């Protein structure tokens, strides 16, 4: 692909294309609707470039295996949907703790439980941040189109590699299963980041795999390159070993938190179209953003002062940005395919400065532009 020709591409397969473009070398996972196409795509594509695909016995193993691939030095990815995402949580936590770059795709369907397996949802937004036990930093991106699925997959790999951090890619079933006309960029137009490895002349004997480096991201050697280092899900000091002192625990948590918090400008991605005098803002993400944009455009045609912001990065949440929006706007409308999840963050950030209103569907149906428009127009 990528001869600048328009193709009809499914969102799930855009993840595959994006992954291959970002240099994915390893996929481990377990099939589940509506994410199976991602596994199938990687099964097809990876061996062509010497990469590996493996279908594991379950999602726990899929997550574990993908982290294993990452430790061996390969750019790794796994993909699932809600039930499998729940199963991945424990090992996702290990990935966070040992700072393993890995991309975890969750193509959301309606939950809880088996729910409506073939219907779209944005019900795992909070789970993406809070699903595993204990405090932990997380990055989660959510595309609203097939092209964005491609772009954000590349970003997800880049962030994972740069920050030594599992990155969640939250599609919804609409974006995952829809086909769209897209023109993919050529390889040389795509920025690809690789993890920082120790320099060739590193002192392997005295190497500290969890050194508090300036950028807070310790260089990561591939297994098998002579560093012979230790990695554990226990709290550990810079040597990688647990020392059982609470001081080390705090230091590690603070570094892991700061490596993300210090780079919010780079990590928090969004698009917006908010004019100086727009006093109604629609904040959305994923497929829902399409209705939001459509509705705002129509509202403007009707002479209303409405604008939109579409979050591509959901976690870390664009708190500062939303706070500022709330200062200016009278009303922030948050359409979501759930009972109201990210709206909680919006409310928190808004601190009562703007009215925050949700539009919610959690039954597998979509939020249409007209629903958003009605809320913009104040009609219920």
């Amino acid at each position, binding site marked *: 692909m990528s001869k600048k020709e328009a193709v009809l591409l499914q969102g799930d397969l855009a993840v595959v294309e994006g992954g291959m473009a970002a240099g994915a*070398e*390893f996929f*481990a996972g377990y099939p589940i609707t509506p994410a199976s196409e991602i596994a199938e795509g990687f099964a097809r594509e990876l*061996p*062509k470039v*010497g990469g*590996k695909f*493996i279908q*594991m*016995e*379950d999602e*726990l*193993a899929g997550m*574990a*295996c*993908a*982290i*294993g*691939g*990452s*430790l*061996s*030095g*390969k750019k*790794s990815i796994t993909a699932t949907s809600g039930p499998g995402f729940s199963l991945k949580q*424990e*090992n996702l*936590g*290990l990935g966070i703790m*040992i700072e393993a770059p890995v991309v975890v795709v969750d193509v959301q369907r309606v939950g809880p439980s088996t729910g409506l397996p073939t219907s779209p949802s944005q019900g795992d937004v909070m789970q993406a941040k809070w699903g595993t036990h204990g405090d932990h930093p997380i990055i989660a991106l959510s595309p609203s189109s097939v092209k964005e699925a491609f772009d954000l997959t590349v970003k997800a790999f880049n962030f994972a590699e740069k920050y030594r951090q599992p990155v969640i890619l939250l599609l919804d079933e609409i974006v995952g299963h829809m086909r769209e006309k897209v023109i993919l960029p050529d390889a040389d137009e795509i920025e690809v980041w690789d993890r920082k490895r120790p320099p060739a002349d590193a002192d392997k004997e005295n190497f500290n795999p969890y050194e508090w480096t300036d950028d807070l991201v310790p260089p990561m050697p*591939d*297994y*098998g*390159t*002579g*560093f*012979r*280092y*230790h*990695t*554990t*899900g*226990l709290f550990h000091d810079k040597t990688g*070993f647990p020392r059982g002192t609470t001081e080390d625990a705090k230091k590690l948590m603070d570094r892991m938190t700061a490596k993300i918090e210090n780079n919010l400008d780079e990590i928090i991605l969004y698009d917006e179209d908010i004019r100086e005098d727009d006093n109604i803002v629609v904040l959305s993400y994923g497929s829902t953003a399409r209705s939001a944009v459509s509705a705002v455009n129509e509202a403007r045609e009707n002479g209303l002062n409405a604008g939109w912001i579409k979050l591509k990065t959901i976690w870390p949440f664009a708190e500062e940005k939303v706070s500022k929006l709330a200062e200016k706007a009278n009303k922030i409308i948050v359409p979501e395919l759930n009972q109201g999840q990210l709206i909680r963050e919006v409310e928190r950030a808004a601190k009562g400065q703007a009215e925050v209103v949700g539009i919610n569907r959690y039954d597998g149906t979509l939020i249409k532009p007209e629903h958003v428009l009605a809320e913009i127009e104040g009609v219920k």
Partner: protein
Amino acid sequence: MAVDIYKYLREDKLPHIWCPGCGHGTILNSLVRAIDQTDIDPDKTVVVSGIGCSGRAPGYLKFDTLHTTHGRAIAFATGIKLANPELNVIVLTGDGDGSAIGGNHLIHGCRRNIDLTVILFNNQIYGMTGGQYSPMTPTGAVATTSPYGNIDQDFDLVDLTRSAGATFVARGATYNPRQMTKLYKEGLEHKGFSFIETLDQCPVNYGRKNNIGGPTEMLDWQKEHTVPASKWEKMPEEEKEGIFPLGVIHRKDDPESEYTARYQQIIDSFAKEDE
């Protein structure tokens, strides 16, 4: 010619934290000797464990080492190995870690016949969490969660792994470290999934509580409850009850059926197409 075991040990982490007389140390001891007898490159060797007292073993070994989540070591190891088949990947797991919560990964590792060497520290109990029964605790034994005697049956793990597809299956016991070393060495050299169960003692949470006694009595117990595999085969069924065969129980040498080798064939088929 003395063996330099410190080549493979993180000396600064010793003495280890295991209890006095815990068999885990003897297993570690045998393992480093076995490694020494192979020509495995230590720089290309990864040791993976789950959680448990046994899970602490990799911390003492001077390789790339990974202490994962409870029960999942084989799944992590599968990723490590498949992503880089050049690596020698050793999994150290407990009876709880490997056969309770990790049972599924164990049988699927066997089924794939992926080239891992899995050593299971079978002390017949959950040591680390204070002595709850495991799938390897004998029926009738007392544990903190079986105060009235364990009603579960225990697995015959060598039979289970064989039937799941492992191509090297053996059982050792800490009372016989020479044999352990030999079995580990063979397991390490075998191309395919190797599984070596090792009868092991937890004096603190098993031996004393089941009136077997301390470490030495537990080693005696082992001696009394094991026979060489060759002898086992000839024993009448009724005598086998409660007796464990030791040695290589099953082996099938077919390196081409190994998982990463098979995967490589797919990759090679594309490489050829390119030519």
